[in-house]
């Protein structure tokens, strides 16, 4: 059993009663990582010395000065820059890179009193759905070490599911928080585009990327999103809108809530178990006073193609900065500057990253721009309009997070298109810029399933209210993988 069985408010109560200290919590994290991470492989760099010292200092801070997350351990996805802690974005091209500033979210974590335990593994530059594309290690699913944790925030989801840390940050460009949260049986929120500053997030697709929290309970998730949200002068795409108290929205009351369930999300390509778990969840929500109807997001099936064109195009531009000159990996034995660029990038990037850079370069190149890039931007408008129309009549949209539970390591490596199909239910949310959460809603053959709740722009409060009401009425979130008890499977 671990202390991380407790949610944030319970841990604060234990701290207040002096039954535990912040130093104990930090030590617990490193103890769990020592015991479990040789199997789970969620962490890249660890911050043990600094975190241990920080924890001891924080134990001296008076209780009046502490917020709800003060002193609690957190893991940070490795595409979020942390001053003094190696940050690689899962890529060889950034191996050994030591950021010289903190991302805005990292500042905010510190301001809230969270202790950064280490950096979490991910698909290289967040391109992938299984964390198999990391240049360093393949993270395993704590529920079955032969299966993937999902991706790209696989380390973030697996570390929370294994109880190595109670909180983590991930990033979500096409499903990279929600899909691994679903695969690992934890709670993962992709906030509205613009809710959380992207300053210091190593950019993949700038019009889609958002940082968000991964936790074991909805309440903890709401606390953490509250802590990292808000407009930031360093990110001109962060939105100047009020950040409400998400925790206060957890009333348990969803009477009169109108739910839209897209036919497309329960249709072709979606597995029976995922479908059934959603229908069961809708019954629970109905019993709590909500109503649901089938709706249509008719352009859903075009989401995947639209996404791969737009995200790859943006990536081809964003990743141009990795040239071996100012930081990161640099190829040896080159004669000219052009060769330095080409060799550094050829040796530094993995295949999936190269594939997307080339796809994006192709889509943006003369003769292809209108046919591919502009066309995809137009279809993006249609996809966004689908959501706008449904949200005129409904408060939230509900469906599965993924078509199937976690697949086996190595199972989908050969064909990029098969791997991409994992994200058909999460991608449209990014294209529309709306918020979406995944919460545990059942199991299939012992592997967790995720329920996706999608809300209106900047209405994370309603999502949390629904997610929390559902969570309180069910017990899926209380189940833990066998590895949780410290026994190796």
């Amino acid at each position, binding site marked *: 059993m671990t202390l991380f069985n407790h949610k944030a408010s319970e841990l604060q109560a234990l701290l207040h009663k002096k039954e535990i200290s912040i130093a104990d919590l930090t030590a617990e994290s490193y103890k769990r990582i020592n015991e479990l991470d040789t199997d789970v492989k969620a962490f890249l760099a660890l911050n043990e010395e600094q975190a241990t010292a920080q924890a001891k200092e924080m134990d001296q801070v008076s209780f009046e000065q502490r917020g709800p997350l003060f002193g609690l351990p957190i893991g940070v996805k490795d595409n979020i820059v942390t001053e003094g802690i190696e940050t690689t974005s899962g890529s060889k091209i950034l191996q050994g890179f030591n950021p010289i500033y903190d991302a805005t979210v990292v500042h905010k974590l510190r301001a809230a009193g969270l202790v950064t335990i280490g950096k979490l593994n991910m698909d290289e530059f967040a391109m992938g759905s299984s964390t198999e594309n990391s240049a360093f290690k393949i993270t395993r699913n704590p529920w079955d070490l032969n299966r993937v944790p999902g991706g790209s925030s696989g380390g973030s989801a697996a570390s929370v599911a294994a109880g190595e840390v109670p909180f983590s940050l991930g990033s979500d460009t096409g499903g990279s928080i929600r899909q691994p949260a679903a695969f690992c049986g934890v709670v993962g929120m992709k906030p509205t585009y613009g809710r959380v500053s992207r300053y210091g997030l190593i950019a993949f697709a700038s019009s889609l990327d958002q940082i968000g929290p991964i936790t074991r309970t909805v309440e903890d998730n709401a606390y953490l999103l509250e802590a990292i949200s808000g407009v930031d002068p360093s990110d001109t795409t962060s939105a100047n809108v009020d950040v409400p108290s998400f925790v206060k929205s957890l009333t348990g009351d969803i009477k009169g809530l109108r739910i839209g369930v897209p036919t497309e999300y329960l249709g072709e390509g979606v597995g029976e178990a995922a479908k059934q778990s959603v229908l069961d969840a809708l019954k629970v929500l109905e019993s709590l006073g909500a109503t649901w109807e089938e709706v249509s997001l008719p352009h859903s099936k075009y989401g995947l193609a639209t996404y*791969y*064109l737009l995200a790859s195009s943006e990536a081809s531009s964003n990743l141009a900065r990795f040239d071996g000159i100012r930081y990161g990996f640099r190829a040896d034995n080159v004669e*000219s500057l052009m060769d330095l660029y080409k060799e550094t990038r*050829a040796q530094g990037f993995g295949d999936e990253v190269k*594939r997307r850079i080339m796809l994006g370069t192709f889509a943006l190149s003369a003769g292809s721009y209108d046919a591919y890039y502009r066309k995809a931007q*137009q279809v993006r*408008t249609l996809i966004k309009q689908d959501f706008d129309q449904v949200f005129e009549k409904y408060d939230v949209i509900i469906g599965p997070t993924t078509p199937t539970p976690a697949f086996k390591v190595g199972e989908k490596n050969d064909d*990029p298109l098969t791997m991409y199909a994992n994200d058909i239910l999460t991608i449209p949310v990014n294209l529309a810029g709306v918020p979406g959460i995944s919460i545990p809603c059942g199991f299939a053959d012992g592997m967790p399933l995720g329920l996706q709740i999608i809300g209106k722009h900047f209405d994370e409060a309603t999502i949390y209210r629904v997610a929390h009401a559902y969570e309180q009425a069910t017990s899926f979130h209380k189940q833990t993988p066998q590895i949780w008890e410290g026994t190796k499977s």
Partner: protein
Amino acid sequence: MANISKEEVKHVAHLARLAITEEDAEKFAGQLAAITNFAEQLNELDTTNVEPTTHVLPLVNVLREDKSVPGLDRDKMMKNVHEQEAGQVKVPTILE
């Protein structure tokens, strides 16, 4: 159905500043053709007069007062540079 030749892949790789082997050019040609063919399903949709979405938020220019603020520390910025000389970043010869 779009075909992407090995030569086109090499051209795109050059634009993207990626060194590429013959073998990889062959492999990527097939994969990129499959992905672009998949993407051509978008042509089923009539998008005449549909405005492209570059960004979901109704963003306008974000302005601030034209006042200088301290930037990052120069010595810190040089910390991750592999080759340097006299406080400057060094690269291979660019002129013969």
